[in-house]
């Protein structure tokens, strides 16, 4: 309040005016200023990203071995790119299509299918990109949530180095495309400026995540909690209102597409969105309880713990304190929702764990950061600054350092062999040999029933698309036609891996069981009249080629 009177008039209506500063130079300076202001964080996140990139990339086409689900999204994306349709079979709203639209954009722009060693590997490149983006976002989110450098770096280290994370984030799955979008949604929701624009960005990212895979919707309560924590009374109405509007309107594009195709409601002679939703929610066979040793759910859980039991253990230990501490509450809630869903039973897909990993890492990192610098834990708030003796503080932190070093040594010991295996073991070798065998020994005129992981490779090798048939489409898709009568007689070869055999309920001796014949009529009959001609790989990664002899 210095101006006492009106200053003399300092403008004229015709005089030259000072030229405005060049906005581009201003931008460069702003970016440079920001980087300088955050140089420790930038250096730290660069190193972490580099380490994460190396651990992820070295051996990523060899492990895991390609499998059916990966092949399906690969084939969808291939169909988008080459046929301009939403899938290599009739699109039936199993998932919203945005995930493989992104994949096809990647394979189209980078010419992926022509370059990668095999089709699924081209899609795995996108998973690598998603991983790098996720690492940066994970660190940024940790910092925005107030975890400190220690907590944020710990979260990233867990995410980048846990063998469980490395194994699953390499796989060409929609869940891995969801992760960066989901983290972006959380990152924007934690905007320190508390701006409406950030809320809109969060909603848009979250909508992309949900349209990539609908299961991301489970995280909505955790995201809204975070947004609520990070909005200000003065503009909260606008922030939350536009978050809701943006998210709803963008997601509405999916049912709108169905309406325009006249495929929203269940009807005779066409697929429909509502039927697909009903099937996903109510009719899909459950996987049983995770506590029942004979259940599929138990087996799936076991397959995760074989990779790494430390991450789940640490995360479960951190989840309760995580929920109590304010700054970790939202990410701990995100993790807790997934755990509750796991306990509830229902259908448990093999890659379900993917979406849990980043939030497990954040919860552990956040709790660690809190232990280093406590405060703001609601009812159990410790007035850290109020503790008078600096010696107590130093002692506490010394103990923490010792505990951390011990944890790194113990966990590192457990992770080292698993990481070495992921780096060097070519688990995909058998799958590759099987493909080579088919190309060498099966004429292109033959009808081959395949695991989807081979579909694109075979079609690209010159086998007509209607002769290469994904095994799950037999007896289901009316467009799939076989020359024989009954249809199984038209099949010449079957190319199925051990996982496919299990899901088809094939007996250990390779013969179809009663269930196989009851549930999968054509495949079952074909298997009954088939003889094994080649087998490659070991264990669950093995794949067998059978010739049908009518």
């Amino acid at each position, binding site marked *: *309040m210095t*101006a*006492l*009177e*009106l*200053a003399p*008039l300092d*403008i*004229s*209506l015709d005089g030259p*005016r000072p*030229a*405005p500063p060049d*906005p581009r130079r201003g931008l460069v300076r702003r970016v440079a200023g920001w980087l300088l202001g955050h140089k420790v964080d930038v250096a730290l996140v660069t190193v972490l990203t580099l380490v994460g990139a190396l651990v992820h990339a070295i051996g990523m086409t060899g492990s895991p071995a390609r499998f059916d689900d990966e092949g399906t999204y690969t084939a969808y994306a291939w169909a*988008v790119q080459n046929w*301009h*349709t*939403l899938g290599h079979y009739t*699109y039936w709203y199993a998932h919203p*299509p945005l995930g493989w*639209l992104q994949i096809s954009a990647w394979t189209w722009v980078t010419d992926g299918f022509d370059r990668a060693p095999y089709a699924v590997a081209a899609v795995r490149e996108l998973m690598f990109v998603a991983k790098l983006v996720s690492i940066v976002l994970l660190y940024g989110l940790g910092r925005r949530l107030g975890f400190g450098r220690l907590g944020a770096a710990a979260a990233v280290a867990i995410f980048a180095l846990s063998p469980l994370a490395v194994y699953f984030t390499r796989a060409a799955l929609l869940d891995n495309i969801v992760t960066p979008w989901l983290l972006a949604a959380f990152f924007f929701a934690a905007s320190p*400026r*508390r*701006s*409406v*624009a950030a809320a809109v960005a969060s909603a848009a990212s979250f909508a992309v995540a949900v349209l990539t895979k609908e299961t991301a919707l489970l995280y909505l309560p955790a995201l809204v909690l975070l947004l609520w924590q990070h909005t*200000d*009374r*003065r*503009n909260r*109405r*606008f922030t939350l*209102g*536009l978050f*809701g*509007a*943006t998210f709803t*309107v*963008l997601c509405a*594009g999916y049912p*709108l*597409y169905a309406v*325009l*195709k006249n495929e929203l409601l269940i009807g005779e002679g066409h697929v429909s969105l509502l039927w697909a939703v009903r099937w996903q929610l109510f009719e899909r066979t459950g996987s049983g309880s995770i506590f029942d040793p004979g259940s599929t759910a138990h087996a799936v859980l076991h397959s995760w713990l074989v990779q790494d039991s430390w991450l789940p253990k640490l995360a479960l230990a951190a989840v309760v304190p995580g929920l109590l501490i304010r700054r970790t509450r939202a990410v701990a809630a995100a993790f807790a929702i997934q755990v509750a869903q796991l306990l509830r039973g229902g259908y448990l897909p093999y890659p379900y764990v993917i979406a849990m990993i980043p939030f497990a890492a954040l919860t552990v990192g956040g709790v660690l950061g809190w232990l280093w610098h406590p405060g703001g834990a609601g009812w159990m708030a410790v007035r850290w600054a109020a503790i008078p003796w600096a010696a107590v503080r130093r002692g506490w932190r010394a103990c923490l350092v010792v505990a951390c070093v011990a944890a790194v040594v113990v966990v590192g010991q457990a992770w080292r062999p698993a990481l070495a295996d992921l780096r060097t073991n070519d688990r995909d070798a058998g799958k590759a040999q099987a493909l080579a065998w088919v190309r060498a020994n099966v004429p292109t005129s033959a009808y081959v029933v395949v695991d989807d992981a081979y579909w694109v490779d075979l079609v690209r090798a010159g086998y007509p698309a209607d002769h290469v048939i994904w095994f799950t489409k037999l007896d289901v898709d009316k467009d799939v036609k076989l020359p024989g009568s009954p249809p199984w007689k038209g099949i010449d070869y079957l190319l199925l891996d051990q996982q496919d055999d299990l899901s088809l309920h094939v007996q250990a001796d390779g013969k179809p069981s009663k269930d196989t014949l009851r549930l999968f009529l054509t495949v079952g009959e074909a298997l009954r009249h088939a003889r094994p001609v080649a087998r490659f790989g070991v264990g669950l990664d093995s794949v067998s080629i059978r010739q049908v002899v009518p």
Partner: protein
Amino acid sequence: MGGAARGLQGAGVTQVMFMGGYLLLTVALLLVAITTLAWMMDSWRTPRAVGQMAFPEPDSPKLSFSLIVPARHEEAVLADTVRRLLRQDHPAVQVLVVVGDDDPGTAAVAERLAREDGRVTVVVDDSTPKNKPKALNRALPYCTGQITGVFDAEDEVAPALLRHVDTCFRVTGAHVVQGGVQLMNYRTGWWALRNTLEYFFWFASRLHFHARSGFIPLGGNTVFLRTDLLTLAGGWDVNCLAEDCELGIRLSVAGARVEVAYSPELATREETPPTLRGLVRQRTRWNQGYLQVLRKGEWKKLPRAKRLMARYLLAMPFMQALSGALVPLSVLTMVLLKAPVLFVLLTFLPLAPTLATLVVEVVGLAEFNRMFALEVRVRDYLKLVAGSVPYQLVLAFAAMRASVRELRGEHGWEKTEHVGAHRGELELEGVR
């Protein structure tokens, strides 16, 4: 998506061209909708921005004010307005009432006011035909204050306003201060609610954005300018139907610093036009004024980025008219044209920001309700939502009308009449 590309190959050349043009229009509409939405809620973009909405805290007054009140057939409301202005808690206020030489009724009220209080001066406007900018220019030579302010004859001005404006000029070093104007009679009709909310978003938010970006169409009243600057600029443009907007553009070109402040208790209270017809006329006049400013081309002297903004803002009535014309066309195409699904999906895009705007309007009504301590009911929210499309059509109609009038060269001044609906019945009695 299914077969979109194949569908395109199968379509004839005319259809492809039609679809291309239609998509271009869609993108334009999308841009308009998004920018309108962003500017509409500019003041709430961050908590910090919300804090910048209001006037700074006043200190002791230092400046002197001349307030021009053009009055034409306003004998019903003028006395009350001027008496209120004289009740300002600011020590240096001069009020200039401009009356026409053909309007003895209003002139008599003005003369009586001048006799009652020495701070009132009556200025007679003998020009023909008469309009607001001419009246303002007549009064300008008589302004003795350092700051000149403009009020309309029906305005209800807060008594503490000038003290706040005084401080605002000195603290910010601004050349122009634009205060808030707020319609209050939101229950008069279905469109009154929307009209009221339009003012709220315009003065509480959007003008702040324009001031920040250095290109601002000023408001018609509660606007304060340095008298020296105003004299230098030669006053208002007498040939323009939106003299306030025109002056704002000219001062923007000169690089004037404009400060916008909106505090609910200091907003000048006004009334909506009494009828829907009146609203259409008022809106036609404003839109035509914008088109006149666009044609005058003063804005072309702005630096490039602002020039783009000027063109966009001033052409807005045209775009509104266009979108109005597009509504029946899109209904027609939905029935007649068998287009690929992807194309149809894209044409739905502008609907997204439009729906988001509706949400923001609902939130805005809640905010308006809170800031003015009103008793807005669920019914009002429903009216707001239900009135969205009809109101857009009314605006589009006014925009089309303005475009046609401007093309035909009709520049007549359709004045808005005032009945004092924003004041209580009792107060009106008191005036008589």
